[in-house]
């Protein structure tokens, strides 16, 4: 009995010691969008290399999850591609700031055996496919925009998100702007009542499902299509051009909004007017309490954000994201000053 006592005491001591040693490191938790996950993952890793005592653990559970968990305060910060609405902001126990980090694009990614050329899509066409009105790849609507491409007579398998997603929000926000039927029938939110298709979890799940399902069509953030080497289509913008997602076309989409940025940074830039614009672009935001209880974490977060808005932006183009416009960064630095760090 006594040896059991002794060994338990030793074990408890060891656990406390390890715990104590680990306590020197500042561990912070955030969760949310999968849209910016590749670049956040890179950022937190780089930041940790420069500040080894700060570990920022980010979990990609979807924008809906980010909003939920930050509102319930089970994580210190959230991340979302869909701005919180008035109700959600009201329900949170404190004022939450939206801090844009990068610009990204949502692209239509597909898997058609023997078709490797880039397909052209228009907004209404995509809406009809996702409404379930167009079900075969060789439909007249698709063929008209893509003369010279032999499209098979097989079924289109629509792949969408199974979880609450900001990427979904960006996608359906665009579809609602170009298709009145989509707007009334399905609507715009992080999670919608999909008329057709299979669900994947996270951007990763959708990319994965499209990759493994011949005939599939899904929507993912650009980097996921690039990293999984899957073909993605160009989309017709408001000016009538067929635009492919790129750093330039996404930056162009934000140009107009950057000049008229609202103070809370909540703005949609889908279907933006102008030339060279990629129509399914968006900001993505970090959700942070203005007056959090844990001031040490707040300090670390503000310091990280300042790094992300300056040095961090360098990593964006390599990963397919567009850096923030200079005007936006200036406004945001001022907003960061308002976060209470003591």
């Amino acid at each position: 009995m006594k040896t059991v006592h002794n060994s338990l005491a030793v074990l408890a001591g060891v656990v406390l010691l390890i715990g104590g040693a680990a306590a020197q490191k500042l561990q912070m938790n955030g969760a949310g969008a999968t849209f910016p996950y590749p670049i956040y993952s890179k950022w937190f890793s780089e930041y940790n290399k420069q500040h080894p005592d700060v570990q920022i653990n980010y979990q990609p559970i979807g924008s809906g999850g980010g909003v939920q968990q930050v509102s319930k305060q089970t994580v210190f910060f959230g991340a979302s591609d869909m701005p919180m609405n008035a109700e959600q902001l009201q329900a949170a126990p404190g004022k939450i700031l939206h801090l844009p980090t990068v610009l990204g694009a949502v692209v239509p990614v597909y898997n058609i055996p023997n078709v490797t050329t880039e397909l052209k899509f228009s907004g209404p066409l995509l809406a009809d496919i996702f409404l379930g009105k167009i079900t075969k790849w060789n439909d007249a609507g698709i063929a008209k925009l893509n003369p010279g491409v032999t499209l098979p007579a097989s079924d289109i398998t629509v792949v969408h998100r199974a979880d609450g997603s900001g990427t979904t929000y960006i996608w359906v926000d665009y579809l609602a702007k170009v298709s009145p039927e989509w707007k009334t029938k399905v609507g715009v939110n992080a999670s919608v009542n999909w008329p057709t298709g299979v669900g994947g979890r996270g951007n990763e799940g959708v990319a994965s499902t499209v990759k493994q399902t011949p005939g599939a069509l899904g929507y993912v953030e650009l980097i996921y299509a690039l990293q999984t080497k899957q073909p993605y289509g160009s989309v017709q913008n408001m000016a009538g051009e067929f635009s492919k997602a790129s750093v330039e076309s996404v930056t162009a989409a934000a140009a107009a909004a950057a000049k008229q940025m609202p103070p809370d940074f909540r703005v949609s830039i889908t279907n933006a007017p102008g030339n060279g614009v990629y129509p399914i672009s968006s900001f993505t935001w970090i959700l942070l309490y203005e007056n959090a209880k844990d001031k040490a974490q707040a300090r670390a977060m503000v310091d990280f954000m300042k790094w992300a808005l300056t040095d961090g932006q360098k990593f964006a183009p390599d990963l397919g994201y567009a850096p923030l416009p200079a005007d936006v960064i200036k406004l945001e630095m001022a907003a960061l000053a308002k976060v209470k760090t003591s």
Partner: protein
Amino acid sequence: MKSTTTLRRKLLSSAFVGFCGFAVLIALIPLAFVLFFVITQGIRAVNVDFFTHMPTPVGEPGGGMANAIVGTLIVSGLAALMAVPIGVISGMYMSEYAGTRFASLVRFAADTLNGVPSIVIGVFAYAVAVLPFKQFSALAGGFALGVMMIPIIARTTEELLLLVPGSMREGALALGATRARAVFGVVLPAALPGIVTGIVLALARIAGETAPLLFTSFNNRFFTTKLTQPISTLTVQVFTYATGPYDDWHRQAWAGALVLVMIVLVCSLLARLATRRLERMHARG
């Protein structure tokens, strides 16, 4: 007339016997399939990095699951810490007071808890161990897995304690020992090897659970031993990687699956050997 019906009956019997043997083969085929894939894909994927490195940033190949392996050990350890005392002692009660109505209630509760889907336990643990503390943590994960372990250990303990010959208990009591002394000093030690085997098997089982950890211990990209922080575990990591689009993630998922299957295999074999030795000991004694 009679010989044809006899012939028919004999044929039917042979067909039936054949079917049963066939059923065994059919069941073994997926087992062979699964093990084949896990072993071949896993061996190709496993390297030293897997056991020593943390995950790399998304999309960059390489890295490993070192933090996840440690995390699984920690969370399973916490679960055992919680479940072993409660399970063993409840099992003790059920065996000592087997006839009473309360013991039947406890047994019913244990069997019921055994049948509760692990995802439901996860939802329960989220409400009880995460929300009130506003924190995902290794402790919450340990709690969820512990709740699952308790009924397994309780029933195993009960069965093994009942197997101990009554003569041993009566002998102790006859010598003037209290109930407690008799049980802790004589009956329990006799059943201990079996109970330990049961605990090992229960550990192997919960180490492979994913669902209850999704909303309790969550996940952590970094290496941590802090119990009040989210922690990475092998099962959740395999799930994340398997449902992802990167080939390198898939490779690592197979490696993780191989580690999980090895854990299960080793524990099952050890349990088998231990039971065989126990039976031989009992036969001799």
